[in-house]
């Protein structure tokens, strides 16, 4: 994941392409966050804006709406996906 490499990896490329876009982020415990990707680092720490919180899938109902920022710890991130 190190972005300092001269050869950009597929993951680094993906991350730089999706900044500012709407994304979904799932954690290991099954929580799903959908929002605008403010920023992300090499540890997969993530900052979202205007996020909604669901369990597993948005079909399971809205658990919470965050009007401001949400910070997500990188170690708990399972995936980040284009919404």
């Amino acid at each position, binding site marked *: 994941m190190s972005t300092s490499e001269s050869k950009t990896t597929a993951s680094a490329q993906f*991350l730089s392409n999706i900044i500012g876009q709407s994304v979904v982020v799932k954690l*290991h415990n099954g929580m799903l966050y959908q929002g605008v990707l403010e920023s992300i680092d090499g540890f997969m720490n993530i900052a979202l804006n205007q996020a909604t919180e669901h369990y597993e899938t948005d079909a399971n109902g809205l658990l919470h709406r965050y009007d401001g920022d949400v910070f997500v710890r990188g*170690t708990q991130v399972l995936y980040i996906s284009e919404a």
Partner: protein
Amino acid sequence: MSLAEILPLEIIDKTVGQPMWVMLTSHREFSGTLIGYDDFVNVVLEDVVEYDHDQEIKRHAGKMLLSGNNISMLVPGGKRV
């Protein structure tokens, strides 16, 4: 005499652009087109179907970065259903 004939990362590299089935340590699995990967085998997939206990739980139309942290197996060819 018998050397490592096939390198694991070589298999993954040859699968770029093709379907890949990714299994985590849990009962969760992902199947989609492999776009790329990095040294930690974090994986970028596209058009992904997410499964848990073999049940489809979510579809992802775009690209997805799947953390390599919990990936236990990768199967070229995608999930057979």
